[in-house]
């Protein structure tokens, strides 16, 4: 499995290949459509992330000392953003997640192209993933 940094660089590279933001949106929509579904049991109020205009559910488990993330949203572009985050943070150790920086989001210019509410939602999603990492790291210690 590649390191978080290597995956982040890959994503930055991919995003730089598109000519404009319409194409990037199309890409995110395709990612969103291909996101594996979260177990219905986790699409409840308990797993909802606050701060998003669309609904976002994130669930994590620890398998072989790695975080496995599943997520869903009722909005497709949001699902695309989640798919990117899952690619970066799923199948990584809690420690690696906690140490990873998030500047790849600035590098792909995602924040400026999201409405303020969606950008807040993105921050909330990363925060939630890191919270899961903190919880599982405590278990591992």
């Amino acid at each position: 499995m590649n390191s978080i940094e290597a995956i982040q660089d890959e994503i930055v590279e991919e995003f730089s290949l598109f000519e404009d933001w319409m194409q990037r949106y199309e890409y995110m929509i395709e990612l969103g459509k291909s996101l594996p579904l979260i177990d219905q049991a986790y699409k409840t109020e308990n797993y909802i992330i606050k701060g998003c205009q669309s609904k976002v559910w994130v669930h994590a488990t620890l398998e072989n000392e790695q975080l496995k993330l599943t997520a869903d949203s009722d909005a497709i572009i949001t699902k695309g953003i989640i798919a990117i985050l899952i690619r970066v943070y799923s199948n990584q150790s809690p420690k690696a997640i906690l140490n990873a920086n998030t500047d790849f989001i600035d590098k792909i210019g995602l924040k400026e192209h999201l409405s303020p509410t969606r950008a807040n939602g993105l921050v909330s999603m990363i925060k939630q993933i890191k919270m899961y990492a903190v919880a599982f790291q405590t278990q591992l210690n």
Partner: protein
Amino acid sequence: MIDVNKIRADFPILSRKVNGQDLVYFDNAATSQTPNQVIEVIVDYYSRLNSNIHRGVHKLSQEATDAYETARIKIQKHFNAAEPYEIILTAGTTESINLIASGYTKFLNPKDELMISAMEHHSNIVPWQMLCEKTGAHLKVIPMKLDGTLNMEAFDKLLNSKTKLVFVNHVSNALGTVNPIKEIINKAHGYEALVLIDGAQACPHIKPDLQALDVDFYVTSAHKLCGPTGVGMLYGKAELLKELPPYQGGGEMIATVTFEKTTYADLPHKFEAGTPNISGGIAFGAALDYMNSIGFDTIAKYENELLTYCTDALKKIDGIKIYGEAPDKTAVISFNVGEIHPYDLGSILDQLGIAVRTGHHCAQPVMDFFEIPGTVRASFSFYNTFEEIDRFIAGIQKALLMLR
């Protein structure tokens, strides 16, 4: 006949690019754009008049005070209030409503009932819920029908001698419905209940005659009608405003202050503590001048043509559902297309330079009524064009190809 190209030249923001495209601004119900005639008044204020009003002995203060009080008279005349001092200049609709809610705390008891409608903005719900918590009074809700009009038979049944205050918006921000406020006011007065009308969404399209309406309180914001943000109006009948206690204590609102007892200033100053938004108040007056120079009949006629044109075009889109189809509505269209999330549609439109509002529009009970998370809302102003609507429709079709 409206000369829309001439009007558009007055609004510098309409010529800017957004995401590389010419801006199409269809979020007028959230805030309207500002013409040069208003921007220049703000610049002129800070260039020539800036000083504190109502207290300076010097020339600048006198000129600024004159300009501010002239604006108040313009607002009074526009809305046909009986007296200038019945116009309280506030920070906007929300503050105006909170001022009244705060003022009635001491007049209510647990036997009393307050009434709102099912299509209110959160700012015309929450202050009254807070007032009920404080006083023990009960909040009743006038239900609405599927076409987005109020159920007036239900209103008749809810109204009784315990009803003390009724709060209804003149126009719904989420649906565009024009409510029968004259009928509501007359019926409420039959039970000696007072009526506050939230005019935030109505005033950009309709010129209300407050004396003819015989309304007790009417509130609105300048930024919905080509004025600046952070300034608005509370109209109240003088005898009612005189009874109410001050909202905030501070400078300007006093007659005399000693450590033993302070007496309050007369209207309107009793409710205008502290240094107000002076340039905002003056610009509010200028915004009304600007809109009156075009004429509200002309504005309403043209906006209605835009509304009909866009509604007809939207109805041709497969899977479209329009929320709010009242026979009498302003130029606001709330809709969804199939299962597509409004936020997705709004995001793609934004990439195409088209500004719409998505979400619950601060009217969650309206969304709950239709059992939806939100809508896409396009709202038009007199400076919008049929060509912009064509781009909007083409944008939706493009977004649907991507999202479906």
